[in-house]
C-alpha cells in the first residue's frame, strides 16, 4: 500500500507540476500571441498589398509563432515550480494537512490514493479558447479579405512639356533656314536650353510650365509677325514694281509703308537674314524700276523663303492651337496655364425658389425711441434731397437714363402709348 501510494502520489505530483508549468507558459504565451496576431495581421495585409505570396507570409507567421513560444517559455521559467512546490500545491488544494510533505521526508504514511481529485486542476477553457480563436479569426481575415495590389509609383516624366518641345523644334527649324538671322534666336535658344536643363519634376512645375508656355507664345508671335511682315513687304514690292503710273505721293506712301514693315522686321525675333535686311533697307520705292527683274525676283524669292521657313517652323496650321497642343502632349492632369471652364453656377436649380408671396411689403418702424444701442447709428429729421430741376425727357424705347442727377436710377420704358394709357387708367 505504502509503495503503491508513494508511486501514485509521485506520479500525480509530477502531473500537477507539469500542468502548472505548462499553464505558466500558456499564461505568458496568450498575451504575446494576441499582440503577435495583431502585428501579423497588419503584416499580412501590408504584405498582400505589395504582392508577397501567401506561402511566404504563412512561413513568416509560423516562425513568429515559434519565436513567441520560445519567448514565453523563457518568461515562464521564472514561475516554474519544483516538485516540492507541486507537492505543497497538492497538499494545500486537497487539504491533506501536509501529509505529502511529511511522507516525502519519511514522517508518516502517504495519504490514501482515494484522496486524489484530479479535476481540481482543470484547464481554464474560456481563457484558453478566446485568445486563440480571436487570433485565428484575425489572421484568417487578413488572408481572406480582398486587397488590391498597390500601384507602383509613377516614373518621373521623360518627355519635355509640349510647349517647350515645340519651341525648341521651331528654333531648330528657323536656325536651319538661310533667310532667318540665327543670332536673333540665340536668346530664345538659351532660354529654351535653360528650361530643358531643369530636372524632369521641375519641367512640370507651375513655374516651369508657365515659362515654357511664355517662351512658346513669344516665339509664336515673333514667327507670325515675321510671316506677316514678309508678306507685306513682298506685296509692297510687287505693287511698286507693277504700277508704272505711280505718282510722287503714292511713291511716298509706299515708301512709308515699306519702311514701317522693314522696321517691324528688323526688331522682330526671329529676324530676317542680315544681308537680306540690308538689301531691303536700301530699297527706294520710287526707284524700284531701276532694279533689275532678276534682283527683284531674287528678293521676292528670299522673302518667300523666309515666309515659307516661318510656315514650316510652325507647321501647316498657323501657330497651332491649344487644343492641338493638348492632344499632342501627355495626358491631362499635369496642370497648365489655360483657365478652366469658368466659375461654377451659383444655383443648383433651374428655377428660383417660389416663396408663395404675392406682395412685397416694406417693414418699417419710425419710432426709434425704443431702439437698442447698436440698432441704429443715429436719428435725424430731414427730407429727401430730390433734384426737382431734372428734366423728364422721354426717350424712344429701350434703356434710358432718367434724371440727369439720378446717377444709379434706371428704369425701363417698354410700354406702348396704349399700354401707358391703360396703366394710368388703372391707377386712377
Amino acid at each position, binding site marked *: 500500500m505504502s509503495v503503491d501510494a508513494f508511486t501514485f502520489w509521485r506520479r500525480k505530483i509530477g502531473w500537477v507540476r507539469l500542468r502548472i508549468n505548462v499553464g505558466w507558459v500558456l499564461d505568458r504565451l496568450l498575451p504575446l500571441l494576441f499582440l503577435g496576431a495583431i502585428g501579423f495581421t497588419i503584416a499580412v495585409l501590408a504584405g498582400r498589398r505589395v504582392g508577397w505570396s501567401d506561402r511566404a507570409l504563412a512561413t513568416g507567421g509560423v516562425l513568429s509563432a515559434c519565436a513567441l513560444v520560445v519567448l514565453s517559455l523563457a518568461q515562464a521559467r521564472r*514561475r516554474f515550480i519544483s516538485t516540492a512546490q507541486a507537492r505543497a500545491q497538492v497538499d494545500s488544494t486537497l487539504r491533506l494537512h501536509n*501529509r505529502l*510533505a511529511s511522507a516525502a521526508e519519511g514522517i508518516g504514511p502517504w495519504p490514501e490514493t482515494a484522496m486524489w481529485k484530479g479535476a*481540481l*486542476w482543470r484547464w481554464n477553457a474560456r481563457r484558453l479558447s478566446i485568445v486563440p480563436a480571436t487570433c485565428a479569426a484575425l489572421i484568417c481575415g487578413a488572408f481572406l479579405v480582398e486587397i488590391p495590389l498597390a500601384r507602383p509609383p509613377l516614373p518621373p516624366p521623360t518627355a519635355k512639356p509640349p510647349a517647350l518641345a515645340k519651341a525648341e523644334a521651331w528654333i531648330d527649324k528657323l536656325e536651319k533656314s538661310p533667310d532667318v538671322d540665327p543670332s536673333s534666336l540665340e536668346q530664345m535658344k538659351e532660354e529654351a536650353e535653360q528650361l530643358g536643363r531643369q530636372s524632369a519634376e521641375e519641367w512640370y512645375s507651375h513655374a516651369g510650365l508657365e515659362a515654357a508656355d511664355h517662351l512658346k507664345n513669344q516665339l509664336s508671335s515673333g514667327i507670325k509677325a515675321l510671316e506677316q511682315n514678309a508678306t507685306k513687304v513682298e506685296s509692297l514690292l510687287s505693287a511698286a514694281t507693277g504700277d508704272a503710273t505711280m505718282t510722287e505721293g503714292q511713291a511716298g506712301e509706299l515708301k512709308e509703308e515699306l519702311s514701317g514693315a522693314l522696321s517691324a522686321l528688323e526688331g522682330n525675333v526671329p529676324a530676317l537674314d542680315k544681308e537680306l535686311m540690308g538689301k531691303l533697307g536700301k530699297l527706294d520705292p520710287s526707284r524700284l524700276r531701276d532694279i533689275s527683274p532678276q534682283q527683284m525676283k531674287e528678293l521676292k524669292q528670299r522673302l518667300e523663303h523666309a515666309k515659307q521657313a516661318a510656315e514650316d517652323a510652325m507647321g501647316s496650321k498657323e501657330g497651332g492651337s491649344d487644343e492641338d497642343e493638348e492632344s499632342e502632349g501627355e495626358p491631362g492632369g499635369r496642370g497648365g496655364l489655360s483657365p478652366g471652364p469658368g466659375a461654377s453656377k451659383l444655383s443648383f436649380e433651374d428655377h428660383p425658389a417660389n416663396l408663395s408671396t404675392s406682395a412685397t411689403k416694406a417693414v418699417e418702424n419710425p419710432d426709434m425711441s425704443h431702439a437698442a444701442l447698436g440698432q441704429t447709428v443715429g436719428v435725424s429729421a430731414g427730407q429727401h434731397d430730390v433734384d426737382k430741376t431734372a428734366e423728364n425727357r422721354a426717350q424712344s424705347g429701350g434703356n434710358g437714363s432718367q434724371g440727369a442727377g439720378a446717377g444709379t436710377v434706371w428704369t425701363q420704358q417698354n410700354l406702348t402709348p396704349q399700354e401707358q394709357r391703360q396703366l394710368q387708367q388703372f391707377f386712377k
Partner: protein
Amino acid sequence: MSQRFASDTDLAAAGPKLSALLSTLNGVLFGQQMLVESVIVGMLARGHLLLEGLPGLGKTELVKAVAKAIGLTQRRIQFTPDLLPGDITGNAILSEIDGQRRFVFQPGPVFANIVLADEINRASPKTQSALLEAMQERQVTVMGETRALPDPFFVLATQNPIEMEGTYPLPEAQLDRFLFKIEIHRNPADVLKRIVMEREIGVEPVVNEAMTAAEFGECIALARRVYMPEVVADFIARLVHASHTGNSAAAEGVKFGASPRAALALAAAARSRALLLGRLNASFEDVQAVARAVLQHRILLDYRARVAGKSSADVVAALLAEVKPAGEPIPSTLLSAKIR
C-alpha cells in the same frame, strides 16, 4: 528520526489522553469547543493566554476545569488598581522562628501551575510588569532571592473589552508575551439552554482528571517534536513578513507588524494543534487556524486604520486570504479549487 520527531507510537500514547482532556473540558464548558481547543493548544505550546471577553462567560470555570483535569494547581488574582507587585509575587514577612526574628518569604498567588489573572488591565503598570516578568522568566526575585515558579506555569489573563475607564491597557511589548489572545464570544441560545438545564449557581461541576501533570508535561515535550515541513515554515515566514506595511495589500494601515517571536509562536502553536488533532506534522491548516489568536494582538494599526474601523483581526483575515499557503499562485490558464 523517531527521537527527533514525534512518531506514531508517541502519538498513540498521547492521543487518547489529549482527546480525553478535550472531551472533559468540553463537558464543563458548553459550546466553546474552539475556546477549549485554543486553550489546550496554547498550553501545549507552553504559552500564556490572554482571554478577552465579557464577564460571566466561563473564563474562571475554564481555568479551574483545566487545572482539575490535568491535576495542576491554580490560583486566581483579581487585578485592581491598588494591587501591588508583592501581592502577586509574595512578600518577605517578619516571623519569629526558633526565637529569632527573620524575614520569611510568603509565596504569592503566582506560585501555581495555572494563574488566572482576572482583569489584568485594571492593575497599575508596575504590578502588571511584575506578573509579566514572571511570565517571561518563569521565576520571581524577592528581596534579592530568585525563586523558580512551578513547572508547568501558565498565566491565563482576562480583560474586559468594553469597560476601559480606569484601566491600564497593556503595552504592545507586554502583549507580545502572550502566545494567544483569544476572544470569548457569547453562547447561542441552544447552548444557554443546555447550561440552564445542567448547571446551577454556586455548584461547581465535577471534573475528572484526564491526565496527570507529568503526562501533560510529556505532551508539551512531544508537541515540540512534531515535524514542521519546510513549506509550512515558509508559509509562516511569508505570513509574518506580509504583516508589515508595504509587504502586502493586507498590511495597509499597519503601524507595526508581527515580530520574529510571533513566527516562533505560530510554529509552536501549529505543532501543538497538530498534536492535539493527532497528526505527526504541522500543516498549512494548523497555521491558518492559530494565526488569528497569535497575530491579532501583535499587529498594531495606525490611527487612520483605527479611525476607519479596521481591526487587527481584519488584517489577519486579509493576510490569510492574500498569502497563499503553497506559495506560487496557480496560473490563470488553470482552474484550481480547494476542497472545503
